[in-house]
C-alpha cells in the first residue's frame, strides 16, 4: 500500500475506533451482553454436561465460544449503523469530495472493526480464564484465537459495511438484527450437533455456517488442536471475508456513483 493510502486508512480507522469508544451505548453492549448471556446459560445449562456424550464437564468452557461470534454480530450491526449514519448525515458525501480513496474508506472502517474485535476477544478470553476455564490448546491456541477473531471481524465487518452502503439507513440495519440472530440461535451454540435430538433443528444447525465458526473456537478451548474444526472454521471465515469485502467494494462503487 502506498503511504498516502496508509495515512488515509489509519485516520479513518482511528476515527472508527474513537467513535465507538466515545459512545458507551456502542462500546459496552458487545462486551457485556455476550458475557452476561454466557454466565446465565452456564448456570442454567450446567446439567447438560450430564448428558451421555457431552464433550466436557464444564458448560462454561463449552459456551465460551459463543461470545466470540455473538460479539462479532453486535459489532457488525454497530459498525453498519455508524457507516449508515455517515451516509445519512452527509459525511460520506463530503468525504467523497476529498482525495480520500474509496478503498481507504472501506479499509479504514474494517480496520476499526478489527481493532474492536480483538479487544472483545481479549475481554472474553480474560473472563474465561478468570472463571477457571483452561484452554486445551494452550497459549498458542489463545494466540490463534486472536487471529481468528480478527478474521471473523473482517468477515462480519465487510457484511455490515455492505448492508450500510446498500441500505443507507441506520434504522434498516438495526431492523436486520433479529434476522441475523436467527443464524446464531439455530446453530450448535448450546448443544453439540450430534446431541441435538430434533432432526430438523440438527439439519438447520448443520447447514448453518455459524455452527462451524463456533465449533472452531470451541475446539481450541475444550479439545485442543482439532484440524477438521480449525480448517472448517478458518476456511469459512476466509470465504465469508472475501465474499463480504467483494460485496462491500461493489456497493461502495455504486454509492460513490450516486454521490
Amino acid at each position, binding site marked *: 500500500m502506498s503511504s498516502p493510502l496508509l495515512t488515509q486508512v489509519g485516520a479513518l480507522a482511528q476515527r472508527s475506533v474513537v467513535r465507538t469508544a466515545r459512545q458507551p*451505548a456502542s462500546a459496552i453492549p458487545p462486551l457485556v451482553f455476550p458475557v*452476561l448471556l454466557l454466565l446465565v446459560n452456564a448456570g*442454567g445449562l450446567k*446439567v*447438560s454436561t450430564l448428558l451421555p456424550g457431552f464433550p466436557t464437564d464444564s458448560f462454561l468452557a463449552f459456551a465460551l465460544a459463543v461470545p466470540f461470534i455473538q460479539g462479532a454480530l453486535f459489532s457488525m450491526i454497530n459498525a453498519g449503523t455508524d457507516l449508515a449514519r455517515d451516509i445519512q448525515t452527509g459525511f460520506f458525501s463530503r468525504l467523497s469530495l476529498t482525495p480520500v480513496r474509496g478503498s481507504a474508506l472501506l479499509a479504514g472502517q474494517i480496520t476499526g472493526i478489527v481493532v474492536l474485535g480483538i479487544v472483545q476477544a481479549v475481554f472474553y478470553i480474560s473472563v474465561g480464564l478468570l472463571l477457571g476455564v483452561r484452554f486445551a490448546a494452550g497459549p498458542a491456541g489463545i494466540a490463534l484465537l486472536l487471529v481468528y477473531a480478527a478474521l471473523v471481524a473482517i468477515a462480519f465487518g465487510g457484511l455490515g459495511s455492505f448492508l450500510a452502503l446498500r441500505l443507507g439507513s441506520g434504522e434498516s440495519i438495526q*431492523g436486520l438484527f*433479529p434476522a441475523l440472530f436467527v443464524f446464531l440461535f439455530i446453530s450448535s451454540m448450546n448443544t453439540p450437533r450430534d*446431541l441435538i435430538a430434533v432432526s430438523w*433443528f440438527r439439519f438447520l444447525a448443520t447447514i448453518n455456517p455459524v455452527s462451524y465458526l463456533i465449533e472452531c473456537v470451541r475446539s481450541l478451548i475444550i479439545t485442543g488442536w482439532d484440524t477438521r474444526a480449525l480448517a472448517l472454521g478458518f476456511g469459512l471465515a476466509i470465504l465469508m471475508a472475501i465474499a463480504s469485502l467483494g460485496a462491500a467494494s461493489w456497493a461502495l462503487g455504486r454509492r460513490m456513483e450516486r454521490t
Partner: protein
Amino acid sequence: MRLRGVVAGVAWRMLKNVVTTPSILLPSLLFPLLFFVAFAGGLSQVQNVPGFDYPNGYTAFQFVFVLLQAAAFGGVFTGFAIARDFEGGFGRRLMLASPNRLGIVLGYGVAAVLRWVLTATLLTVVALVFGMQVGGGPVDLVALYMLALIINVCGFLWSAGIAMRIRTMQAAPLMQMPAFLLLFLAPVYVPLSLLGGTLHAVARFNPVTYALGTGRGLLAGDATQVGLSFGLALVLVVVFSVWALRGLRSAEAAG
C-alpha cells in the same frame, strides 16, 4: 368520556404505528418465536437429564418461559415508543392536547396489551404446530394467559415510568436490562431443583421463578403456588402503577 377518548386515540395511533412499521412490528413478533424455536428445538435433550420431571415435555416447558418473556418485553417495547414520542416532541404536544393525561398512560397500556395478544396468539399457534402437549383444562389455560397478561402490564408500567422520566431513547437499556436480568435469573432451561450454585440462590428470591413455576404447572394441569404467583404479580402491578404515575407527573413538571 374524555378519558375514554384519550385512551382510544393514543392506543389507536400506537397500534397503527406498530402495524404499519415493519422495523417495529417484526422484532417483537420474531424474537419470541426465535427464542422458542432455539430453546425447544436445540435444547430438547435437556429433558433427558436426571431429575428433569416436567411431564409435558421440553416444548411445553419452554413455551411458558417464552410466553412470559414475550409478555414482559411487549410491555417494555411500548415504553420505547413513549420515549421516542417524547424525544421527537410528540409527547409534549400530546400532553398539551389531552384533557385527561392519565388517559395517555392508559392508552399506551391498552396498546401494549393488544400488541402482546398478537404475539401470544402467534406463539401459541407455532407451539401447537410444533407438537406442544397441553395437560391443563380451560380454566388452567385462562389462568396461564392471565398471568402473562399481568406480567405484560408490569413490563409496560416499569418502562413507561422510565420513559416519562428520562424522555429519550437513550433510556432503552435502562428499561430493557432489568427485565432481561429478572427473566434470565430464573429457571429458564431446567426446573429450580436442577439449578446449581449462585443461580439457584438468586432464582429462589426472583418473583419470575414463581410465575414460571405456576405457569408451567397450569399448562400441565398441576399448578402449584398459584396464589403466591398471582399475588406477587399483582403487588408488582400496584408498585409499578405508582412508579408510572409519578413518571407522568415528572413529565408534566418538565413541561
